[in-house]
């Protein structure tokens, strides 16, 4: 050890450890063995299997936790179900008190939580102390407020029920807050399963919740392996699943819950761009990089792991960055003077290392600073890989470690293109001192959080979540509430197709959507007498890119009316028609101005115009509905009138759902923008051939999406009659595309199409299952009806916030201010 005099001369840093004593005492008090926390009690199953928790920085065994099995999962869900009966009826103001008590208790045990988190996970105590735990408390304060306000501000909503929540190991406490706080605020009860590597802080948290006096069963924590996670997800009495973790596991969960009627929110991986323009504060941006990729050892889903720098400043920027890396300190997570702690587990360490080797083998130049590293423990140097191109796997795949890859660009549009050249869309960081440039780029990057001249900022008041394969749903902010509520009129969907049950009906993915092209169908009634003048044959084609085009397959099917008569013929669409329609829908975004880039006023004018032109043909549409469905004229008239009214509704909404200013702790502006989702494929319900079509098309296009519509299979003519309405209403080409044919056959292509961003499906329960199942391929959003009835005529069920919610995704743009 150096003498004081030597230190005086060298001016080195020394050790500055935070004491682990309180945590050790807590672990010891539990005999270093932990049960499950169910109903506010420790439950230790007989003959339980245990799993060790290690401190990744030194390999020390911290304690052991139970590997829950089916019995325990059932017990936890049962406890939550019982508690739901009362908690869901507990007044919001009462729930708010409890949540306030939780927040207070978190603050009272701030240091204990922070130290345990660092010991269990390996993250620096500075981060757990200054970021994770304060945010944990903040989320409970924030959502305590929404519990207080629920009955007045969310009176059209009810809680979802029992929620199964599975969280990752990178931010055990923060992820727990994101999951539990909004859930219990809205009157749900939860069963939470922490990640295998990091189970202890959730157990400490559960004790703290109990200490705060929260009723038993509201928050239950079970520990276990991924199979316990599966049991939770597949449990029939779970009403919603919320997951944060890898995209691969997200896919599995999407498939596991498909068709079950369980709500699902997924916050998945990322490869977030960090874009630096020539007019950025380069030194500031270098620090931004440190916060982006070396925060939590880079084990951050939204880590800014793809550096994209303007070519003319790239050399200087990289030089500054390398100089900065030489000042990084890696060491004991409990040391108060380090930047990076330990990697959570050996497996993870090896994955990171193999990615770095891949990066080098792909031609990258690897830079690691010449800094002192601890001799033992799972530490990894901050790493920069330059000289790679987007074609490299290292540039495309999430590494989940302290590894940054860098690219260069020439122009702002190229920067945007590179930023969006990824399957993910979780976050982005944009650095420029030019507000016009920065905000323009922020609006064009496809990501749920965009930080301008800052990075990795979080707050309870702002939603967090992904675009594309980074998942769906938001955590935080008002938008985060909608993952935990259901419209008041809607029961928990029980499609009678419980995929989790071992006795589930055999579903054959190959068979679903199979279709043999149509043949002639001679009329069974109303035979022609050969004397009367027949109608002029009028066979609508497909409506793609603003034109009528022949069905690719050149097959046609007859539409049979209520009396068995042929009321018309329409094209029998196939995969290629869908392909062309999707292309056209994308093109409508690219034309100038693209549909999404038009202002709401313009879109509202077009919707009003559609309404006007539909109303002008009111009688014709009424007659068609009667002819197809055999319903009374009165009923058909009501449908057409409601369709016109609905167009008015969404013309109204076209410029009134843009988003909100989020009241985060940032000095500056955080804006939650309700952006369109992109291209939405919509399979319309059979009932209400016109109203079903309009009720789904209108919100989607009002909010800037372009659509591929599959009209009612049985009664498609209201939709094909609509071509002329669209043609005369100034709807730009490709905004609405309509492909007729076999609903499931066409839906299958749509849902398997990887350049479709969302699919809405109002067909059968089985179709709903497949739509949800197949959507996992590119993690597109889905909205399905599970084959359950919906009253399209009513305003409550047929229009409103639910439709707008499904038509948008929230992007939060953080803009700090100050000169």
């Amino acid at each position: 050890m150096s003498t004081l005099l030597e230190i005086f001369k060298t001016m080195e840093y020394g050790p500055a450890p935070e004491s682990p004593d309180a945590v050790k005492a807590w672990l010891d008090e539990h005999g270093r063995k932990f049960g499950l926390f169910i109903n506010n009690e420790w439950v230790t199953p007989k003959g339980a299997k245990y799993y060790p928790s290690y401190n990744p920085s030194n390999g020390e065994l911290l304690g052991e936790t139970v590997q829950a099995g089916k019995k325990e999962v059932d017990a936890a869900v049962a406890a939550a179900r019982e508690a739901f009966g009362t908690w869901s009826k507990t007044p919001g103001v009462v729930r708010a008190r409890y949540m306030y008590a939780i927040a207070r208790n978190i603050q009272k045990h701030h240091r204990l939580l922070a130290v345990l988190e660092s010991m269990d996970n390996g993250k620096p105590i500075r981060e757990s102390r200054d970021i994770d735990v304060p945010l944990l408390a903040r989320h409970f304060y924030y959502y305590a407020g929404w519990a207080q306000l629920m009955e007045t501000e969310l009176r059209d909503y009810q809680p979802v029920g029992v929620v199964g929540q599975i969280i990752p190991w990178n931010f055990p406490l923060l992820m727990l807050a994101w999951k539990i706080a909004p859930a219990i605020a809205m009157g749900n009860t939860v069963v939470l399963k922490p990640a295998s590597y990091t189970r202890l802080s959730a157990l400490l948290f559960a004790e703290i919740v109990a200490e705060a006096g929260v009723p038993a069963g509201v928050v239950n924590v079970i520990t276990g392996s991924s199979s316990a996670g599966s049991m939770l997800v597949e449990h029939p009495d779970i009403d919603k699943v919320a997951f944060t973790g890898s995209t691969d596991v997200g896919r599995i969960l999407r498939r596991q819950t498909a068709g079950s009627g369980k709500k699902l929110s997924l916050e998945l991986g990322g490869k977030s761009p960090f874009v630096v323009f020539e007019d950025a504060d380069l030194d500031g941006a270098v620090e931004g990089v440190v916060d982006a990729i070396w925060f939590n050892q880079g084990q951050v889903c939204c880590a800014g792991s793809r550096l994209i720098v303007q070519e003319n400043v790239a050399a200087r920027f990289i030089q500054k960055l390398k100089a900065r890396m030489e000042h990084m300190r890696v060491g004991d997570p409990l040391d108060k003077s380090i930047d990076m702690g330990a990697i959570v587990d050996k497996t993870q360490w090896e994955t990171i290392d193999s990615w770095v080797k891949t990066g080098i083998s792909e031609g990258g130049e690897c830079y690691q600073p010449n800094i002192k590293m601890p001799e033992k423990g799972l530490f990894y140097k901050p790493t920069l890989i330059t000289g790679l191109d987007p074609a490299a796997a290292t540039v495309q795949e999430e590494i989940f470690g302290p590894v940054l890859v860098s690219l260069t660009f020439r122009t702002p549009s190229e920067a945007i293109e590179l930023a969006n050249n990824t399957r993910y869309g979780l976050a982005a960081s944009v650095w420029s001192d030019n507000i016009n440039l920065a905000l323009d780029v922020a609006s064009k990057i496809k990501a749920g959080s965009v930080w301008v001249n800052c990075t990795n900022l979080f707050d309870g008041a702002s939603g967090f979540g992904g675009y594309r394969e980074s998942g769906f749903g938001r955590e935080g902010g008002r938008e985060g509430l909608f993952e935990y509520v259901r419209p008041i009129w809607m029961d928990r969907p029980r499609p009678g197709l419980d995929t989790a049950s071992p006795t589930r009906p055999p579903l054959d993915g190959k068979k679903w959507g199979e279709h043999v092209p149509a043949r002639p169908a001679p009329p069974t009634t109303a035979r022609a007498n050969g004397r009367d003048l027949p109608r002029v044959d009028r066979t609508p084609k497909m409506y793609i890119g603003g034109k009528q085009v022949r069905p690719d397959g050149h097959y046609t099917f007859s539409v049979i009316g209520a009396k068995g008569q042929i009321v018309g013929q329409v094209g029998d669409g196939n995969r290629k028609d869908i392909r062309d329609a999707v292309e056209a829908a994308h093109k409508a975004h690219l034309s100038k101005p693209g549909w999404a880039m038009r202002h709401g006023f313009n879109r509202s004018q077009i919707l009003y115009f559609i309404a006007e032109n539909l109303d002008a043909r009111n009688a014709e549409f009424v007659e068609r509905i009667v002819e197809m469905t055999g319903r009374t004229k009165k009923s058909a008239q009501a449908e057409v009138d409601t369709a016109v009214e609905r167009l008015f509704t969404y013309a109204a909404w076209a410029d009134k759902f843009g988003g909100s200013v989020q009241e985060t702790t940032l000095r500056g502006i955080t804006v939650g923008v309700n952006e369109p989702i992109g291209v939405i494929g919509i399979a319309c319900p059979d009932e209400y051939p016109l109203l079903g079509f309009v009720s789904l098309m209108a919100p989607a296009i009002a909010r800037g999406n372009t659509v591929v519509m599959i009209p009612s299979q049985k009664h498609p003519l209201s939709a094909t009659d609509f071509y002329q309405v669209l043609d005369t209403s100034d709807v730009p080409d490709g905004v609405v595309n309509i492909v007729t044919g076999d609903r499931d056959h066409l839906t299958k292509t749509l849902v398997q199409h990887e350049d479709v961003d969302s699919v809405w499906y109002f067909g059968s329960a089985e179709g709903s299952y497949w739509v949800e199942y197949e959507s996992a391929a590119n993690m597109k959003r889905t909205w399905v009806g599970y084959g359950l009835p919906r009253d399209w005529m009513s305003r409550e069920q047929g229009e409103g916030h639910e439709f707008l919610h499904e038509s948008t995704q929230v992007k939060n743009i953080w803009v700090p201010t100050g000169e």
Partner: protein
Amino acid sequence: MTQNNRNPGVPLDLDWVMGAHVNKSAVERRVESLPKRRTVKKDWQAAWLLRAVTCIDLTTLAGDDTPGRIRRLCAKAKQPIRPDMLSRMGLDGEKITVGAVCVYPNRVKDAVEALQGSDIPVASVATGFPAGQTPLPQRIQEIEQAVEAGAREIDVVIARNYVLTGNWQAMYDELQQFRKACGEAHMKTILATGELGTLKQVYQASLVAMMAGSDFIKTSTGKESVNATLEVSLVMTRAIREYLERYGYKIGFKPAGGISSAKQAMAWQSLMKEELGDDWLKNDLFRFGASSLLTDLERQLYHFITGHYAAKHHMPMG
């Protein structure tokens, strides 16, 4: 291309000045996190605090300064830490003094006399300190007189109006004249950042001051309503780093005003170490302009040695 010789100044590069970008919120974020990312404890803390002592420009700049007051200050400058304390830290025989004694021009002579026999330089403020609003010939003359009286360092103030109006050329020209008047004495240029409008201006003024031949750049006179902050210090240190990269000259940094606690001092030391490197922890490139800081450093050292919190009146007055 690092050069150990004194910065002679370089031609004014206006492109560089005009192309500066400083993002305030990014600066604030760095400054907020840095003191939480770095800390020193125990022996390291004591060594760092002692190092801070040696970097103090022990300062008195008051209307009521008298020869007696200066003498007392100089005595403290020569022996800032009680010998018994030094001995208990294993530093017997180490020469621990402050970095300089800083006074008004009229008191330079008193200080030079009082510091005779020590190597401690006398620094004099000049050029119409603190406002710099006197005619140029007088300001230059003030430097010359201070140098004549034995000051080895001159803390000059810039004319803030040049920064606020963007007249970089005039600022540069004037500082060059100051530098010439300093001769062998080192020029420490006070930017009075509390009176500048933006952090970008602080950065730009730092560049111009260095181009004009400053040996140190200094935040404040101590007389502005806002004096040394970590924000402006970060911006100035980054300018120093950039200047070093471009021209190879190491420029010193002196935060002044408002630094009165050991904790603050350590935050600045971390800033120096992280942004500039270890060379900027020693008094040839780093000074604290402070009057009451020394007492707190002493008290913290006392606590380190004894484990007891110290009484202020047990520390000899300066």
